[in-house]
């Protein structure tokens, strides 16, 4: 019953999206202008209906209604409630429903609150949003119905991969989806502005909070995903340029570029065509990411060819949306002028440089991710991994980071380097000092060497925009920028340290043996069996000590065996100090009663994720600052209108 209710809500929502599209388009013409009035209410109801459908799905998962095929395939009656609920979106159909729900709710929100843009632009924006949603509704209803029934009803469900029964992972996909979908709103705004030829600062201001919000979620999602891979997969790596990771990085790169160019457009009315183009590209990257992850093409091009329905559908949507947007862009390109001019040495100039470099990195990641698929389709297999991506992206990232240190200090429109030169003396000296120190240490490879030296200078330079400012009266977006840029320096430092100073030790030890890794002494104290709710494990007790006279601490890495489905995982143990992390993994039993231990000492590695969080926090500050000033302006406008009204009424009375 609840499942049918959900399905009905989904069909209704799809029908309303169609209505929203038609009335939005007709509302733009003279004859159909009456229809324009229904667009906003329809968008709101459509969002609510999508939410109802999603709640229905959560309900059938929460009560484990095994007559629903999706539940039977992906859940189990004995799972903890939180994982039952998270299971609702831990599969293809559920995650696509989550996608349209978030998209519908975002559209509803835009329809409710956005009043700064001219009404025709809003109609075109909401029609564009409806067009994109309609594609996804069709995808759900035609090829991935989440509410499909199963007969006969099985006695028990299939369960969920133990690796996925982890809180961090339960909330990782929704975070990324919020980011992806936020970019769909930016895309719709770009379409709306193109259709009505209103590409200007007002459009950038309306779009900016959505880009910022999407970017914050993407940043958090990538950071959390990276940390999850680091502690859960048990091999101590934090980024592998895997296609799935790249699928989340590409929208982030595009959103970062879009964020910066939108701020140029908002405050300087420049970079109009470029910003619109980036709005289209950013959402394209979200869709490409979804396609890569959801179509199964990554496992093998051939697996995709055997069951191509879903992949082809997403690919079709991609082609229609992106092709359509690009055609529109080409048609309108002549009417969208570049906007205000500016000199190379200026705030805008630095931001353009940042945009070009980010786009180039995006191009490399995109091409490097897709090329193995292309090659496989042509009958050859190649692998593209870190040895390719690291130097190729550094080629553009390093100049970008240098400009990042200077750009925020420059004035808009035109400036002289000599004016800001003095402020940069200390960061440059820091870079040189770090370089000398690293040469003295010796044996640091080129990329981490450059990364470390740059990170030190950048950390200093990133707070320079606060100099000569009254800190109390500094606007929140400026604080946000400082935090985010500082976060980049912090993360860069962590990454470079990890690749330069990592110490790995692989040993087979008896109980009682002591081994050394970096500054640590590690003693295998005992090995004991332990049991959990659906697993048994061997647990090692390690007594570790930093330096010769440090405090002795316990670490408890496990080697776990799950029985449904049968699978072995290793639970790593981590010990964090201010200057790094000790990482321990218990391997198998070697011959003659010795045990395999894999130990790493990773100096400053937590800075990678602390940096990521700082970046997201900077974004949050900027978002709060922007929204607060928007709200203040709205309230002020209302007050003025109210005062006028009162005056008019008072004037009428006598």
């Amino acid at each position, binding site marked *: 019953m609840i499942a049918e209710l959900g399905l009905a809500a989904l069909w209704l929502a799809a029908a309303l999206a169609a209505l929203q599209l038609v009335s939005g388009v007709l509302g733009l013409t003279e004859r159909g202008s009456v229809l324009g009035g229904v667009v906003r209410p329809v968008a709101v109801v459509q969002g609510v209906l999508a939410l109802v459908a999603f709640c229905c799905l959560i309900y059938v998962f929460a009560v484990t209604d095994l007559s629903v095929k999706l539940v039977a395939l992906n859940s189990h009656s004995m799972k903890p409630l939180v994982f039952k609920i998270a299971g609702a979106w831990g599969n293809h159909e559920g995650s696509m429903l989550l996608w349209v729900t978030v998209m519908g709710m975002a559209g509803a929100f835009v329809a409710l609150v956005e009043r700064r843009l001219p009404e025709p632009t809003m109609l075109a924006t909401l029609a564009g949003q409806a067009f994109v949603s309609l594609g996804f509704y069709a995808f759900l209803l035609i090829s991935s119905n989440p509410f499909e029934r199963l007969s006969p009803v099985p006695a028990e469900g299939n369960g969920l991969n133990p690796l996925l029964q982890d809180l961090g992972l339960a909330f990782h996909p929704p975070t990324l989806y919020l980011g992806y979908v936020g970019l769909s709103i930016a895309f719709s705004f770009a379409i709306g502005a193109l259709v009505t030829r209103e590409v200007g600062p007002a459009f950038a201001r309306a779009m900016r909070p959505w880009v910022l919000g999407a970017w914050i979620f993407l940043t958090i999602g990538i950071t959390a995903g990276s940390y999850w891979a680091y502690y859960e997969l048990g091999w101590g790596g934090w980024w592998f340029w895997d296609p799935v990771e790249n699928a989340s990085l590409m929208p982030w790169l595009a959103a970062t570029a879009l964020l910066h160019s939108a701020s140029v457009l908002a405050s300087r009315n420049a970079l109009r065509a470029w910003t619109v183009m980036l709005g289209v590209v950013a959402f394209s990257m979200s869709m490409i990411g979804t396609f890569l992850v959801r179509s199964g093409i990554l496992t093998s091009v051939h697996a995709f060819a055997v069951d191509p329905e879903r992949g082809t559908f997403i690919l079709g949507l991609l082609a229609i949306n992106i092709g359509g947007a690009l055609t529109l862009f080409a048609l309108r390109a002549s009417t969208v002028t570049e906007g205000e001019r500016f000199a190379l040495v200026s705030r805008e100039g630095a931001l353009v440089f940042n945009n070009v470099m980010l786009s180039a990195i995006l*191009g490399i990641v995109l091409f490097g991710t897709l090329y193995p698929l292309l090659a496989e389709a042509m009958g050859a297999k190649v692998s593209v*991994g870190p040895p390719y991506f690291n130097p190729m992206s550094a080629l553009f990232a390093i100049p970008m980071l240098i400009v990042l240190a200077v750009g925020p200090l420059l004035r808009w429109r035109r400036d002289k380097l000599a004016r800001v030169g003095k402020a940069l003396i200390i960061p440059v000296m820091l870079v040189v000092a770090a370089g000398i120190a690293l040469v003295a240490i010796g044996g640091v490879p080129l990329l981490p060497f450059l990364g470390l030296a740059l990170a030190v200078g950048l950390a200093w330079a990133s707070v320079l925009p606060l100099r000569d400012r009254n800190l109390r009266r500094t606007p929140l977006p400026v604080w946000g920028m400082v935090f985010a840029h500082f976060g980049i320096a912090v993360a860069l430092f962590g990454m470079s340290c990890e690749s330069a100073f990592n110490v790995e030790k692989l040993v087979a030890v008896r109980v009682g043996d002591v081994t050394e890794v970096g500054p640590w002494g590690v003693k295998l104290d005992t090995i004991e069996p332990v049991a959990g709710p659906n697993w048994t494990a061997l647990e090692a007790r390690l007594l570790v000590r930093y330096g010769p006279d440090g405090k002795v601490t316990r670490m408890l890495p496990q080697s776990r065996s799950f029985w449904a489905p049968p699978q072995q995982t290793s639970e790593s143990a981590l010990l964090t100090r201010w200057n790094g992390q000790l990482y321990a993994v218990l391997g198998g039993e070697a011959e003659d009663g010795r045990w395999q231990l894999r130990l790493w000492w990773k100096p400053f590695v937590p800075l990678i994720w602390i940096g990521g969080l700082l970046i997201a926090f900077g974004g949050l500050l900027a978002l709060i600052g922007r929204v607060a000033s928007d709200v203040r302006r709205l309230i002020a406008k209302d007050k003025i209108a109210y005062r006028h009204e009162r005056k008019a009424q008072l004037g009428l009375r006598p």
Partner: protein
Amino acid sequence: MTRSLLSLLLAIGLGTALPALAQEEQSTAPYAYRQLDNPAEEERAQALMESLRCLQCQGQSIADSDAPIAGSMRSLVRERIAAGEDPEAIRSWLIERYGDYVSYAPRITSLTWPLFAVPLVLVLLAFALLRRRFGAKQDGGADA
């Protein structure tokens, strides 16, 4: 798939490790889970292992994989490094046997040249874009 695994194991001369194909088994090759005693050699071996692909699992290097085949390949890499062989020579040897797929560092071949052409094109494009934006109409302020 299975055939390529078998051929790999046979090629490395580890026919005895065949029963280790089951997922939970560990490789019994001597240097699968043992580091070389010489730290400089181990570092070179580690760098090479991180850029070689495990042929059995999804997107992991042999340094990160617990699959038996990855263990055998680790052992092979370490033994050859210890014998004084050049890392790139070992990579070429592996590529010759198992194809380009085994190496995460693509070589420039008739198949992979676009991978290296694209960054070059991007550099030129970025340069052209910046130049068009700032080069044409120098109005005095652009002094860099």
